[in-house]
């Protein structure tokens, strides 16, 4: 089943199975890099944890494809929460669950940027964080603004990669990286990195582009 959803100025159709496969491939491709980033300022398992979450989504993709988009997002979020096992689980899980709930509440009034903004706000509350704290919010919040103002960007993968890059000079204020204080400066936040990879993968899939 497909559901219409506007993420760019052009309406696109969300095909859940291929979308999950694209996210899974992206995370598998970058799992080692995410682990290395996490080794520098955390516990070194972010890539492994994200891969486990994406594998769980992949295993359930047939069922997820049969649901309306809003329900798919809520269920996918629940699966990530139950399988990732690190702090990323509740953060990515909350993003998808709240996105699904916001889309359901909009009841057909297609305003993806507004729904996305609500979901990102929920992630900020869940993580008790804000932009500048060196978290995935440093990608999600500017992305949310970009979607609201322009509906998207032609060069989305580059834009989100640049946002993740901007976490390098930041000092971590949340999570285990914050224990390092000033020593967290000079490393990219692994959550921002995985977020940029996933947004790029979703954008390419929704826009019919394959491969990195």
């Amino acid at each position: 089943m497909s559901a219409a959803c506007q993420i760019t100025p052009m309406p696109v159709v969300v095909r859940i199975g291929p979308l999950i496969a694209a996210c899974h491939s992206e995370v598998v491709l970058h799992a080692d890099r995410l682990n290395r980033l996490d080794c520098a300022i955390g516990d070194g398992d972010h890539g492994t944890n994200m891969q486990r979450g994406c594998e769980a989504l992949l295993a359930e993709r047939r069922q997820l494809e049969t649901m309306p988009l809003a329900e798919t997002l809520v269920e996918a979020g629940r699966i990530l929460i139950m399988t990732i096992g690190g702090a990323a689980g509740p953060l990515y899980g909350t993003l998808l669950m709240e996105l699904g709930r916001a889309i359901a509440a909009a009841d057909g009034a297609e305003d993806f940027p507004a729904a996305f903004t609500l979901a990102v706000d929920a992630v900020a509350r869940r993580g008790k964080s804000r932009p500048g704290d060196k978290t995935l919010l440093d990608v999600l919040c500017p992305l949310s603004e970009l979607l609201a103002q322009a509906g998207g960007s032609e060069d989305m993968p580059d834009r989100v990669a640049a946002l993740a890059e901007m976490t390098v000079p930041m000092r971590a204020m949340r999570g285990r990286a914050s224990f390092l204080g000033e020593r967290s400066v000079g490393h990219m936040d692994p959550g921002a990195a995985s977020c940029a990879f996933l947004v790029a993968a979703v954008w390419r899939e929704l826009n019919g582009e394959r491969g990195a």
Partner: protein
Amino acid sequence: MSAATTNVGIVIVSHSPLIARGAADMVRQMVGDSVPLAWCGGNPAGGLGTDVAAILQAIEDAWSDAGVAIFVDLGGAETNSEMAVEAIGAPRAARIVICNAPIVEGAVMAAAEASGGASLERVVATAEELSPS
């Protein structure tokens, strides 16, 4: 009802099953079976981390109508515990508190308080006195 079901329950959530189990052993040594107690540790793959499903099960195992106090170690344990409490939902979620206290000392102090029949609020306050405000 027995003391074990009328006293506040204690749940210990660590990234490490060894820490969670060790803290639970210390609680048991202190209060015996007078307080419902459960622990969990490790991610769904068995590595270091936390697991929402395991936390949910621990809350069920330590459930008391007087409420449950949860003790966590690092950030992910807290966030995943919050997810578990939300998953349990109303009305029981209102009787579950994730304590801002050191995991070992907090759990032992809270259990000692709970074993005397103290309310959830009293148990939580006793544990949280250990944390610098």
